């Protein structure tokens, strides 16, 4: 690891804390920088829970706005990331629950060009689709999406945050507001259920 990487890894939390403090004092530019840092993960987590990029983008957008409004409630600026992901997760899960009764939502113009080539069944435009967009790959992807949909919220969230997004167990525990042991147990339970649900693919 060179000195530049080491400095970045050490300073990043501190820089983020400063940005949070500035944003809490009403500095919109500082919050804009926080958006830039966490935007991809926020949309990605929302997407893994919603299976639709349009909804995921909306949920992430709402989460950032809500986070900005509620910044004064964040006691420890160093925990901004986990706190934000908790907001994203909760909003995405609420979005999911409400989606069943909601009419099909039209895409924002801003996303129209990006969404034009999205997958019909999941609304996702995958980078890998260009290379391996075979029927078999698509079926496997849909089967896994369907199986994940059947998991309880906490198990699905724990598995996605830990196994897919690669967050540390401690951070997942922060987001889920539970112990690390419970995160491990939820991941285990999710894997067990997926073993049954995806047995034909194994």
């Amino acid at each position, binding site marked *: 690891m060179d000195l530049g990487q080491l400095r970045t890894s050490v300073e990043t939390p501190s820089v983020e804390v400063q940005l949070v403090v500035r944003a809490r004092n*009403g500095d*919109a530019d500082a*919050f*804009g920088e926080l*958006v*830039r840092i966490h*935007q*991809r993960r926020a*949309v*990605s987590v929302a*997407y*893994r829970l919603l299976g639709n*990029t349009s909804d*995921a*983008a909306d949920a*992430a*957008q709402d989460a*950032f*706005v809500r986070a*900005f*409004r509620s910044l004064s409630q964040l006691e420890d600026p160093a925990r901004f990331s986990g706190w934000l992901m908790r907001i994203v997760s909760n909003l995405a899960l609420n979005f999911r629950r409400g989606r069943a009764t909601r009419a099909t939502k039209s895409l*924002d113009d*801003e*996303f129209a*060009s*990006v*969404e034009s080539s999205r997958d019909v069944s999941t609304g*996702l*435009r*995958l*980078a*890998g*689709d260009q290379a391996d967009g075979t029927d078999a790959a698509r079926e*496997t*992807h849909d089967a*896994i*999406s369907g199986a*994940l949909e059947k998991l309880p919220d906490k198990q699905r969230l724990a*598995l*996605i945050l*830990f*196994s*897919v*997004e690669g967050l540390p*167990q401690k951070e997942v525990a922060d987001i889920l507001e539970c112990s690390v042991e419970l995160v*491990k*147990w939820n*991941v*285990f339970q999710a*894997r*067990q259920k*997926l*073993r049954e649900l*995806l*047995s*034909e*693919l*194994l």
Partner: protein
Amino acid sequence: MRVLTTQANNSDDLRFLMSRSLDGDLSADESARLELALAASADLRDERQEMVAVDRLVMEWGSHPVEIDWASHRTLIEARISCDAKAETDANRVDNLLADWVARGNIGEVDLRGRVLAQIRGANRVATPLRWVIRLGLPLAAAAAITIAVLLPNMKNSPMPVSTSIVTFVHSGRADSPFASDAVTMVLFERTLPPSPVTPSGGSMELIVVGSPPTDAPLDESAPL
């Protein structure tokens, strides 16, 4: 599809260890215990293989990056936050204006006590006629009854039949009215006279006003009801 079997050593505890082993989360003791169990059970080894396969499938499923127009997404968020900030600033300005206005003492004196007293007096004014009826009408009616009781024995001796009735008029009191009072109690004595050259059909009526309240007495608004 393979049917999974459960053996005595294939407990949830061992499966939990298998799951944690995928994450490199086992202590040395736990690793040794799991390896021992795996070495002793082919079913457990199969389950472990399946768990590894599930984990690989999930990671592959999530390995594809989500692509949206990140710049537009960020712009939308910033625009909404900017609107929020402006709305908050406007709200603060209104609050400040109100605070200044209150601080300058622009709120006029309000004679709340006077208003309440005026309301009470108004209520008294409405109740005054009824009060007069109770105060004067009833005693006068009683007096009339006593008068009748005194007069009636004498009238019984009269050769002419007598009928008596007590009438109480309640009047709101107009300045131009002959009954410029609130209540007038009257006792009517009616005598039936025999026909005469003057009154061929016979009969007459005498009216005796027994009492009435003062016509020009000022209303005492402060008096209790």
